[in-house]
């Protein structure tokens, strides 16, 4: 993985980074690169309450905020920004307002790499709106000043339409950190975690390939 000057990660929900990006983040941190994680919401609309329930609609954000802080600490992120938006409302915010927030982050941090969702190929409306705002903002910069933009895509049609990911980060050296990050988002990941551990013991090659390789598409303007 190339050494970066500064990385800016922009996602709408705590845990958006866990499965596909946390190994990349941890690697940048290990390389000595400062990483800022701007997380727009606290995932207030999460649905997993447990059976029997371990929380309720009103307390879930408090739990998820703590999980996000723990996950950031595990990845070694020094600069976590919680932007205070509400889950599932990003696409209804004024575009200019969103763009201004990202513009000011970029001005402040001067990142050499931004990681966000690929608009059009990231399924959840908050993912789409977040990625679109970042792409618009970066797109307005003069081409030679733009940071690299690595996007996460996982819609069913993403490979068909975008082709295979052009960036594949092999993160096996930090896979323990990645698993700990996934575990930190316990309210969201506990259910699937049983499977993860079972698979890990088998060292199922398909699972290990998925875990150890993080895929991104460079956004092309």
């Amino acid at each position: 993985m190339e050494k970066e000057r500064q990385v800016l990660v922009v996602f709408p929900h705590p845990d958006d980074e866990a499965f596909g990006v946390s190994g990349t983040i941890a690697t940048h941190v290990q390389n000595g690169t400062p990483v800022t994680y701007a997380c727009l919401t606290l995932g207030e609309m999460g649905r997993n309450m447990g059976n029997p329930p371990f929380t309720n609609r009103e307390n879930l954000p408090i739990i998820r905020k703590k999980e996000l802080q723990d996950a950031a600490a595990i990845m070694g992120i020094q600069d976590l920004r919680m932007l205070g938006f509400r889950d599932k409302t990003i696409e209804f915010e004024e575009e200019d307002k969103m763009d201004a927030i990202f513009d000011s982050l970029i001005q402040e941090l001067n990142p050499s790499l931004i990681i966000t969702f690929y608009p059009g190929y990231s399924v959840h409306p908050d993912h789409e709106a977040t990625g679109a705002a970042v792409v618009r903002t970066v797109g307005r910069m003069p081409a030679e000043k733009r940071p690299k933009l690595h996007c996460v895509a996982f819609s069913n049609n993403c490979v068909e339409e975008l082709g295979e990911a052009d960036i594949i980060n092999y993160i096996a050296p930090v896979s323990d950190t990645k698993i700990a990050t996934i575990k930190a988002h316990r309210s969201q990941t506990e259910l699937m975690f049983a499977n993860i551990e079972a698979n890990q013991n088998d060292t199922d090659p398909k699972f290990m390939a998925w875990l150890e390789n993080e895929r991104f598409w460079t956004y092309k303007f």
Partner: protein
Amino acid sequence: MMKPIELEKVQKAIEQMADKDVYLHLETTNGAYASHFDETFFSSGAYIRNALVRYETGKITGPGPYRVGLKISLGWVYAEGITHFEIDENNRLLLAGHDYKGKLAVALELSHTPFD
């Protein structure tokens, strides 16, 4: 802590909040990924937070999962699929319906003060 519905307790809590201005949270959801995992699934949902309402009568009914209806000044509020309740430390009545995997499918909450 959310607990399985106890009809009498919930009915009493509903009645205690009648004829007062109360803040309402109401949502239904299939989750944002429903159509991603099953492309034949028609995803829908609705959400309102901090609507200020006043109801004259309210009831919880059904064999479980339960239905809750509130007759407000000029209309109605209702929710179906309610399985759990909690009266929290702020004296808010939290009602929710959780599916068999413990995922929230519907929520109806009433509070004397605005929700965060």
